[in-house]
């Protein structure tokens, strides 16, 4: 297949559209710089018509051939055939292309600065991933380039009750606050099994608990403490003047939110017994587990998961990487789906998150899940799990205009994302990216030349230079721009890929 330039008009209708198309031929101001803060916030074209594509709505309309997607003011206005482009609309001719909803990763550790785990205490419900979102993490852009538009940033699995999650949209170029997905349900990470009981830790870092029994007990203990905390506040509300108030405790306050159904539990889990255990704990405290993460033995207890009302976010085909996952099988997702569980496939990996469409495709390979259902594993189903299905996850009128333009079938290993749109703005465009690479290479070459030149100047007149000389008169030495000849100090290492230890 020879891809056509997407922006070339094949059937121009009116002059207004022609003018817009000319604009579209030049690389639009999309976010393509290697540094997010230098990447311009993509302009809002107002109205966009994607025309003539195969559209996977992941909604009641199913898959539409030779169909159009109309976007207005950041939302989807209509999906159908023969839609008219309003005056001034940006028209994208997409014959031969496929359009899907933006992909969603229900389990990510991308863009978390300063450590994914607060692993010191068995419960750290007070810590918030939203405090440490790193908008400069290049993984955001790489995943955007793979069609990902939203991700659930989770605390690691070092402790039974981890930190509060943050759901983001991959708005490369935005600040941490601008990345946050405002409509997402508040959530929190729990973890069961080997990690919280420290099976694979150094022996000198002992922390209660050291058994699965202990993990259950500590979770119950913290919820009982949260109930006491809530009761203390209730008593205080009816107390008289000048009563010493209870101390606000951010850990217990978060646990109270869980008990009251205002914060969703996303629990790292593998084995059937621990999955049943946590559902039992939740039911005894009157709430429901929102989503089991990994849940590799979920196929053994799929009916129980469905009956509890939990969902499952699993891997496509990871198994046997530690003892508690020896019973994992790649049919897990299909089997749970078959029993009525809302299933998603997640990445848990900066790298895998760049190609979630291929993860979804594995559900077709293993177990023969229908293609539309497979695509839901990385679109509508994670949206349901994160409480954002009213906003994203399918291409339906009224939802956010988060969509991907694929070069071919979205489940094909030969296809790639050509454009990724969020809120009706083009955050990734392959053509722009390729053009930007040349600009960046030229800038880089110029900077290297300037550095070499400055270093040479420094050698010419560097005699007498003594940077450590406290008493030297400030006028003593003529120093070239760029200063002394020593290698640059290394940047503080905050790469999330380096800090991720969790599976």
């Amino acid at each position: 297949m020879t891809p056509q330039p997407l922006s070339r008009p094949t059937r121009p209708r009116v002059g207004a559209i022609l003018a817009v198309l000319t604009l579209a031929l030049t690389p639009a101001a999309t976010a393509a710089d290697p540094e997010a803060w230098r990447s311009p916030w993509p302009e809002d074209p107002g109205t966009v018509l994607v025309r003539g594509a195969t559209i996977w709505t992941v909604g009641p309309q199913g898959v539409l051939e030779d169909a159009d997607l109309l976007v207005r003011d950041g939302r989807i206005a209509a999906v159908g055939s023969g839609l008219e482009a309003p005056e001034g609309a940006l028209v994208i001719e997409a014959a031969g292309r496929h359009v899907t909803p933006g992909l969603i990763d229900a389990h990510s550790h991308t863009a978390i600065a300063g450590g994914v785990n607060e692993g010191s205490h068995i419960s750290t419900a007070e810590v918030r991933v939203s405090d440490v979102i790193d908008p400069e993490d290049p993984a955001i852009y790489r995943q955007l380039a793979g069609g990902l538009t939203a991700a659930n940033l989770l605390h690691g699995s070092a402790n039974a009750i981890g930190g509060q999650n943050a759901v983001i949209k991959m708005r490369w170029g935005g600040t941490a606050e601008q990345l946050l997905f405002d409509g997402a349900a508040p959530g929190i990470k729990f973890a069961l099994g080997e990690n919280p009981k420290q099976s694979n830790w150094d022996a000198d870092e002992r922390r209660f608990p050291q058994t699965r029994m202990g993990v259950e007990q500590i979770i119950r203990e913290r919820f009982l403490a949260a109930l006491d905390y809530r009761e203390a506040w209730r008593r205080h509300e009816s107390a008289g003047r000048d009563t010493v108030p209870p101390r606000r405790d951010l850990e217990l306050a978060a646990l109270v939110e869980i008990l009251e159904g205002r914060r969703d539990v996303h629990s790292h889990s593998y084995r059937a017994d621990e999955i049943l255990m946590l559902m039992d704990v939740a039911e005894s405290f009157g709430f429901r587990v929102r989503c089991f993460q990994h849940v590799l033995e979920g196929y053994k207890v799929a009916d129980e998961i469905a009956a509890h009302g939990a969902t499952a976010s699993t891997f496509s085909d990871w198994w046997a990487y530690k003892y508690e996952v020896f019973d994992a099988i790649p049919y897990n997702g299909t089997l749970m789906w078959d029993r009525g569980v809302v299933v998603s496939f997640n990445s848990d990996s900066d790298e895998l998150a760049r190609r979630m469409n291929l993860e979804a495709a594995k559900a077709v390979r293993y177990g023969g899940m229908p293609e539309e259902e497979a695509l839901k594993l990385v679109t509508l189903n994670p949206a349901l799990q994160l409480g954002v299905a009213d906003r994203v996850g399918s291409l339906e009128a009224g939802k956010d205009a988060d969509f991907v333009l694929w070069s071919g079938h979205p489940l094909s290993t030969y296809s790639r994302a050509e454009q990724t749109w969020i809120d009706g703005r083009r955050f990734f465009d392959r053509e722009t990216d390729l053009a930007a690479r040349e600009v960046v290479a030229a800038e880089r070459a110029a900077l290297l030349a300037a550095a070499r030149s400055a270093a040479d100047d420094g050698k010419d007149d560097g005699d007498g230079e003594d940077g450590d000389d406290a008493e030297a008169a400030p006028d003593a030495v003529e120093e070239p721009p760029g200063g002394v000849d020593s290698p640059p100090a290394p940047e503080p290492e905050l790469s999330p890929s380096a800090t991720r230890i969790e599976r």
Partner: protein
Amino acid sequence: MRARIATVLTGLALALTASPARPAPEVPGPRADVHALVGARVVTRPGRVLDNATVVVRDGLVEAVGVDLASPPDARVWDLEGRTVYAAFIESYSALSWPDEEEADAPATGHPNPFVRPERSVVDRLGSFEPGKLRAAGFGTAVVVPEGGIFAGASAIVALGDGEPGVNVILPRSAQAAALESRAFGDGYPTSQMGAIALFRQTVLDATWYRQAHAAWAANPAQARPVASTALAELGAVAAGEAPLVLATRDPRESLKARALADELGLDLVLLGHGREYHVVDQLAASGLALLLPLDFPDTPQAGDEDDLSLDLADLRHWRDAPGNAGRLLEAGATVALTSHGLGTPNDLHEAVRRAIEEGSLKPEDALAALTTTPAALLGLERILGTIEPGKMAQLLEVEGDLFAEEAHLVAVWVDGRRYEVKSTEAATVEPAGTWELTVETGDGQEIPTVLELTGDAESLDGSLRIGEQVMRLSSVSVSGAEVTLALDTTAIGIPGTTTMTLTLDGDQARGGGLSPAGPFDVRGRRTAGPEEV
């Protein structure tokens, strides 16, 4: 003046007769002479210049400044024709790291987490603070800030004179210092930055609760008594937004997180910056938060050929853009003070400011303001610091040429009305170790024999000075070329404060002069024993 000389003589005579030292005054203050700095160009504040003006200094304060001003008859007159006098700089962030806490040192009613130590006071550690390098770079005042942990304790504002800390302290407990990540992560909570921020947030909420709880208990003691905590009591004013908190940040993400925390918790934050504020210039300027900006620009990258991929593009760009940071923030309307924090030595400040002016868009008068009037205002000390005006502290710079110009030469720094000459250091050309028998000659011809003992090589000298029976250890001694500069505390001979002396050596001959808190003197003498015989 005459009275002062008499005091010197009395003091020395007492010392020579080996009488017990005269007791030092209970509260020793700066013992400044009266000075008239005449004929200089005086920049009284950024943008305000007086040509051929006089500055009168008395008792450590500026008494008068103006053109056609007569020198007082009791003043020592300094002819500064050709020089420019500025207000001395204020170092707004001079870090003093706190040693690791031993378990036994944990405060009994402190916070259970060792990273929360707001009740600490850096004034208690000023004994290990060295004013000399900052002063030689043109600073007259510094905010000494404790570092270590999430809440590190109270900073202190000090004048950068020699002598006992008590003489130099201006404000013993100034702003509380904090960071969003402990510098000493170990096994305990927190081990991550999100944990550090959670602890920061919880601690601020606890401090707010502490005030409410104790107020409620004070009003109604017939109920369970809330816990006592020196840490939470200390943070009450910070949590209420009544007292500033200096928060160290490391990158633009932390800058914006700090802004969000200021809004969320109602804090009055001052941010120690990192040099990449230009990434988020509009957001920071709009936040209204004051910024203390370091100037540690990246060194020239060691670039290979065009295919060199070892250098990160972001780092290359930062090398290009870093000098523009301060100028861009000021243009956007941010409140900016400059700090030498992060530089190899404070003296690198001048070169860095020059680059910020030449390569960036920093205006020289804005640079001066960012080192004088702006920090003075941030510290709430604009009534006593930052400009050259009657009644303010006599913290002055004598400069040949325009400050920050390439050919500028910082000649002297005045602190509390005392003049400290700034010397450039050269490689030693002499080895001064040995016994030197010297004669000190005071202003009116009184001669006092002294013995100077120096040990070690020129790079690591140590020694003592003996007058009569009193042996005084040298607090500093260094060699530049053939010149030996030393300082010592002369309280033991009845002259409280630091005395400095400079000797030029020629073989075994020495000649020079010095300044004691009581006045100037000359010195001459010779080496009577070599180092191997000592």
